[in-house]
């Protein structure tokens, strides 16, 4: 479904992605783990079209994405929950969900999807008229995910959804990620919390300073000595 081949990305002179290749197949949960500054967010931003690869290919369902602007990439079925949630804190919960459905015109379908989001995240329903900036961290993460689902993505990119959340909330969020996947959305999950990410993923890649260091079945990586030492605390 999504294929990256030898992708290089720069911030000015900084060479942030040094030729990464990875693949996400329809229906999978794939996780990209790695320590702070490895280039995980850069990878997702590049897939979403916020950054442009200087070299390499990104294709989605066989179509080249590397020259398509971000709004068209959303229209093609890729949606991102960015790092740090980035909800519109000045808008209400409902308005945030409306923004997620920005490119859609099917009013009744949008309504159905709002209900679907409220089923996944009942807390959001209780707070739908509340200004999003007043939500708790966990609720903001739920809103960011709900908002991203409103475009009905085929592929959902999640950038560190567990960041800054209490362990119980992290568990809840990961359960919901599995549920979203079970309902038919393919997932590319970026995490520093490698343990949780490997526990729900089918496959995984390890990113180290802009390069893919390892890749394979999630359970194999979870069992691997190197990964345990570097990312799972022994």
């Amino acid at each position, binding site marked *: 479904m999504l294929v990256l081949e030898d992708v290089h990305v720069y911030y000015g002179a900084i060479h942030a992605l040094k030729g990464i290749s990875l693949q996400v197949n329809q229906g999978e949960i794939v996780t990209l783990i790695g320590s702070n500054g490895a280039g995980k967010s850069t990878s997702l931003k590049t897939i*979403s*079209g*916020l950054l442009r690869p200087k070299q390499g290919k990104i294709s989605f369902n066989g179509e080249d994405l590397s020259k398509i*602007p*971000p*709004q068209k990439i*959303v*229209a093609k079925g890729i*949606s*991102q929950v*960015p790092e740090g949630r*980035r*909800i*519109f*804190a*000045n*808008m209400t919960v409902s*308005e945030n969900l*409306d*923004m*997620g459905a*920005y*490119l859609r015109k099917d009013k009744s379908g949008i309504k159905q999807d709002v209900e679907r989001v409220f089923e996944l995240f009942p807390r959001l329903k209780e707070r739908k008229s509340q*200004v999003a*900036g007043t939500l708790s961290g966990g609720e903001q993460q739920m809103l960011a995910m709900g*908002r*991203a689902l409103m*475009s009905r993505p085929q592929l959902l990119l999640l950038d560190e959804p567990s960041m800054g959340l209490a362990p119980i909330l992290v568990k809840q969020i990961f359960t919901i990620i599995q549920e979203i996947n079970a309902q038919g959305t393919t997932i590319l999950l970026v995490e520093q919390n490698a343990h949780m990410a490997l526990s729900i993923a089918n496959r995984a890649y390890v990113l180290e300073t802009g390069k893919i260091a390892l890749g394979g079945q999630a359970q194999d990586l979870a069992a691997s000595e190197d990964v345990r030492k570097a990312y799972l605390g022994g």
Partner: protein
Amino acid sequence: MHSITELLQQLVYGLSLGSIYALIALGYTMVYGIVKLINFAHGDVMMVGAYMGWLAITVFHFPFFPAILFAMIVAAIAGIIIERAAYKPLRNATRIAALITAIGVSLFLEYGGMLVVGAQMRTYPNVFPETMYKIGGITFKFGDIVMLVTALVLMLLLHFTVQYTKIGKAMRASSFDMEAALLMGVNVNTTISATFAIGSALAAAAGVLYGIYFNSIDPLMGITPGLKAFVAAVLGGIGIIPGAMVGGLVLGVTESLVSGLGASTWRDAVAFLILILVLIIKPSGLFGKNLREKV
């Protein structure tokens, strides 16, 4: 000022003038909200609007409402062209580069305007009957009422657009977090164009009203009200729409009261005194808080 009646009379004048400042201030604040640029050419767009209204009334013999609409449409198009030609190429440049460009656009409009229409003042046609209404000793000129109502209706329309329409939501989202808006599928270029179009149209409406209020226009007429409207926008909190409306009205009323006290030579100084006070006491403006509604 000798009586309550006179005070109220000055208040009425002040509100008319203030609603003009408010209309201009809205453009400053909306553009700042979305591209973080103080568009110093904004006052000159108001001047362009005033001339378009003049053209529509004296040459095309349009009545007031079609004339103001004509001025607004032309200015909206001018606003879009200015953004595309002058500011868009600099979107990722330093702020100072964009600011200098804005000053360049301002000078271009002022002196380009002189080249086209001449440097001399022109009398603005009086489109309203000289009817006066007296209520409790306060005089309302027919024209003042129309102006105030026009300004208020435009502000309500703007509020509705920003709050409830798709483009309005895109404007709010983009000014809060442009990258997040891109991830929603918002076309940021279109949204920025729409912001310049709306801001310029409001300035043009203000230009027509200003021309009628002061009876004369010239190519440099935009400078002073432009600066004052900028002060109004800062007073309300730059980037905050309701702030610009309130800031404009407060400035207009203050100026008018100062004139009423017999200190009309101080009128223009008042605006800048207010600016200095705001910057010292509350730099984020009257409506500025941590979580702010920006466009």
